[in-house]
């Protein structure tokens, strides 16, 4: 009976894994079939010469380069603001918070994780209106979008940091303490190096979330055509918005195919960023483990 149960459990879990891999595979194949045909230099650079586009000599109007750059900048701003805050809050919750403050902060961060992205977009929009009242030059822009996305990904970073630290065995803490390490030294020399993998999992999740979200940026500064943003206070283009816009407004099959091409580029961009994050994680781990 137990053996049969074990067998069934094994088959069920195996099937679950297979279904997920299958679903992801189908999605990728679907994107490849529809997007590969549209994927060429023209899709990215439009009618602008590649050199002129890359050196910003001419604005790319009909290509995806500004949207790719805009998406990358959004990720950088979002992670640049959320990462220190997320790491700090995660470390506080795992290492310093007392029982009451831990429950309180955890509740707030869980609520934040549950806030729909459109609400965060609305908050960003309201913030823009408020700032516009006092500083008329401030309009919906890249910075506001990046900050709003930072708020969106913050809970992922907090939770991954907290969990990565809390899951470390108590023996590590005791060993460090027995060697004369105070809490800060234990954290710096022993715990954080061991928690790097878990923390980077959160960073990878955050990259994906910041790259794909459309609701937040729609309300805070993204436009269909803006070229490569000249400053943090400019309008900008972004891949998820282009995909949404094309999918909802396409006039012919060719335009829809460009949308699939953009989706494929977004997928490749995310894969590249994940790989980069993975390499950084490896390098950081190696450096911390090194002699």
């Amino acid at each position, binding site marked *: 009976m137990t053996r049969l149960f074990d067998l069934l459990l094994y088959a069920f879990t195996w099937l679950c894994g297979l279904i997920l891999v299958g679903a992801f595979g189908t999605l990728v194949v679907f994107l490849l079939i529809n997007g590969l045909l549209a994927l060429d230099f023209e899709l990215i650079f439009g009618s602008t010469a590649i050199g002129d586009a890359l050196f910003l000599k001419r604005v790319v109007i009909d290509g995806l380069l500004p949207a790719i750059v805009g998406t990358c900048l959004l990720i950088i701003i979002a992670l640049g603001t959320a990462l220190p805050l997320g790491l700090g809050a995660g470390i506080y919750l795992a290492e310093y918070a007392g029982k009451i403050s831990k429950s309180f902060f955890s509740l707030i961060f869980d609520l934040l994780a549950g806030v729909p992205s459109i609400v965060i977009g609305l908050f960003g929009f309201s913030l823009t209106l408020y700032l516009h009242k006092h500083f008329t030059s401030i309009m919906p822009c890249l910075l506001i979008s990046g900050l709003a996305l930072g708020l969106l990904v913050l809970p992922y970073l907090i939770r991954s940091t907290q969990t990565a630290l809390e899951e470390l065995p108590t*023996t*590590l*803490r*005791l*060993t*460090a*303490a*027995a*060697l*004369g*390490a*105070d809490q800060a*030294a234990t954290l710096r*020399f*022993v715990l954080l*190096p*061991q928690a790097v993998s878990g923390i980077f999992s959160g960073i990878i999740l955050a990259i994906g979330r910041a790259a794909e979200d459309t609701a937040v940026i729609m309300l805070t500064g993204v436009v269909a055509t803006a070229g490569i943003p000249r400053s943090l206070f400019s309008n900008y283009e972004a891949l998820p918005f282009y995909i949404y816009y094309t999918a909802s407004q396409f006039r012919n099959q060719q335009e829809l195919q460009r949308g699939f091409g953009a989706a494929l580029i977004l997928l490749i961009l995310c894969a590249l960023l994940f790989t980069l994050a993975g390499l950084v994680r490896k390098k950081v781990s190696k450096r*911390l*483990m*090194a*002699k």
Partner: protein
Amino acid sequence: MSKFLLSHPVTFYEGINACFIIDLDMKKIIETENLSFYYGKRQILDHISVGFREHAISAITGPSGSGKSTFLMTINRLWEELNGAKMSGRVSIFLDHEKLDIYDRGVSLSWLRRKVGMVFQIPNPLPMSIYKNLVLPLQMAGFKKKEYLRSKVETVLKQAFLWSEVKDRLPDDARTLSGGQQQRLCIARAMILEPAILLLDEPTSSLDEKAAREIETLLFSLKKHCSLLMVSHDQAQVKRVADEVLELVDGRISELFTTPSSIRSTKSGIGHFRP
């Protein structure tokens, strides 16, 4: 001239009765006065007043749950890292001819734990390279000079009889060493800060006999560098290595309270054990 006292007769687990000579003039390194300890409402140690000799191997023995490891953790205040524990009484160590109450407000925990090193029951190398495991305590204490770190690593590895085995694999993960090597590495790591006292919580209980004997030999050689306080439930080991023995039963000092000379004489078969 030293003064001696004959202790009460004592029964070992194996049914051997013995009494021991207590050297009244011995120089103490650790002293506890009315030390009591509680986990929640459960009392683990009950008014322990005892002293341990300098540059000796002092063994704490007794049945499981008698408070041996807890006693050890009161000497470097490691119990303060655990929740729900409290203690009363006084623990003093003697450093540079001065008696220091380690629970005094002015005593820094980091300083204390550098002076009172500890080795745990299960070898616990940190998940990093052999070299990094050894230099970490120094780095945490603020030492940065690479040459100094390297020379210290070599010195302690030689002290721990490990240098010849690992000198070519210092960048390897410390967890790839054998159990005995890992424990010697942990002892070397504790010794790198040149502690005055080394606490050892059943340091050979998870090792095979050969590795255990290697550790015992190492402990003998470390006596000239520091004072060792070792928890052990292995009576044979206690007889082999200890200079003095404290037996705890139910958190109290049992009748057994011994001295170096008696243990030595036992080993040589001359002595004070009465079958």
